[in-house]
């Protein structure tokens, strides 16, 4: 096991926060939920840092394994609690425009997120790994158990679906 002394948690956080957050954001319904899940990921990572073994896997793969489990836990809990009106309220709160979101770039992000809602869970997961985590098709195939060419096809179809959604968006 890698000695915790050799790992600077602040450095790990700075290097990987954006990728982890992007991956999570692709898969969950709101910014508030993404904040919640991302904080759970880094809390768990800090708790288990002493168990991390750099000989088994690079730190990024270890973090994404934690992130995948945290997202799955969130989605499972959400399925059970989806009847609660609070879910709707969180969604609204997370979607409230902040002043800086008036910018064009932000609008573009919001459109993408809106279009993502119409994809199924598998498509969102593959897009999250590809564009959120920045993984190669081969790495995604290795993680999901699907073939590399199959991943390419899923990606293309998901992007085409997004494209048609964005084209019809008001």
């Amino acid at each position, binding site marked *: 096991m890698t000695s915790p002394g050799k790992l600077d*948690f*602040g450095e790990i*956080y*700075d290097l990987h*926060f*954006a990728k982890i*957050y*992007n991956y999570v*954001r*692709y898969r969950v319904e709101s*910014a508030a939920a*993404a*904040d919640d899940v*991302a*904080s759970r990921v*880094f*809390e768990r990572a*800090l708790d288990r840092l002493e168990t991390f073994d750099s000989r088994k896997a690079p730190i990024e793969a270890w973090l994404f394994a934690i992130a995948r489990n945290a997202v799955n836990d969130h989605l499972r809990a959400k399925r059970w609690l989806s009847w609660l009106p609070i879910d709707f309220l969180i969604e609204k709160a997370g979607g409230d425009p902040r002043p800086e*979101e008036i910018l064009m770039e*932000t609008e*573009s*992000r919001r459109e*993408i*997120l809106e279009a993502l809602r119409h994809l199924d869970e598998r498509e969102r997961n593959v*897009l999250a790994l*590809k*564009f*959120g985590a*920045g993984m*190669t*098709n*081969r790495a995604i195939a290795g993680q999901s158990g699907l073939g590399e060419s199959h991943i*390419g*096809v899923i*990606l*293309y179809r998901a*992007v*085409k679906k*997004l*494209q048609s959604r*964005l084209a019809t968006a008001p």
Partner: protein
Amino acid sequence: MNDIENSREFSQDPKALRLARKLADTDFSVESGIRASLRARLLRETRASASRPPLFRLALGLSLAALALALRGPLQSVFTARPASPLLAHRSSARPRTAPLVAARPRLKLPVLPGRIEARRGKRPETVFQLSSASGLIVTRPIERLFDVARGRIVSSENGQATLWEFRDVTYILKTEKISLSELFQIRTL
């Protein structure tokens, strides 16, 4: 993005490729409202944990272990030394039970042999850990308790020998007897 750009599907569809590039460039993390505060909180926790002396953590671990051991004895006695429930007592007085497979067979009239054996009386060593209020140290208190396993007696039958254990109202029989080959594969049903 290289594998996207080189893929057959995307290379033939410039609009899809443009969107894929846009997705790759989009950073949602700028919307995060916790990035800085979470970092500060986790680093504070890291520092707090590192500042705790190893002796403190060892003492904490030992305290938890001592608590678990102290609870072991009383909890074990709760689960093992329960009084017989009135329902069970009623059932056993109303209908003496035998071991199920044996009960299906007609009871043998077995002559009692002069030798009567008693099952060994088991001695179960037990140790209870207690926290001494005076010294604060862990002290042990050994308990020696004898308990009956069962009483057994050897009886002889036509084809062999059997040992009978009578425990409360239930009789258990362990028989040794010669059987024929056809009996070996006989399936007995209740």
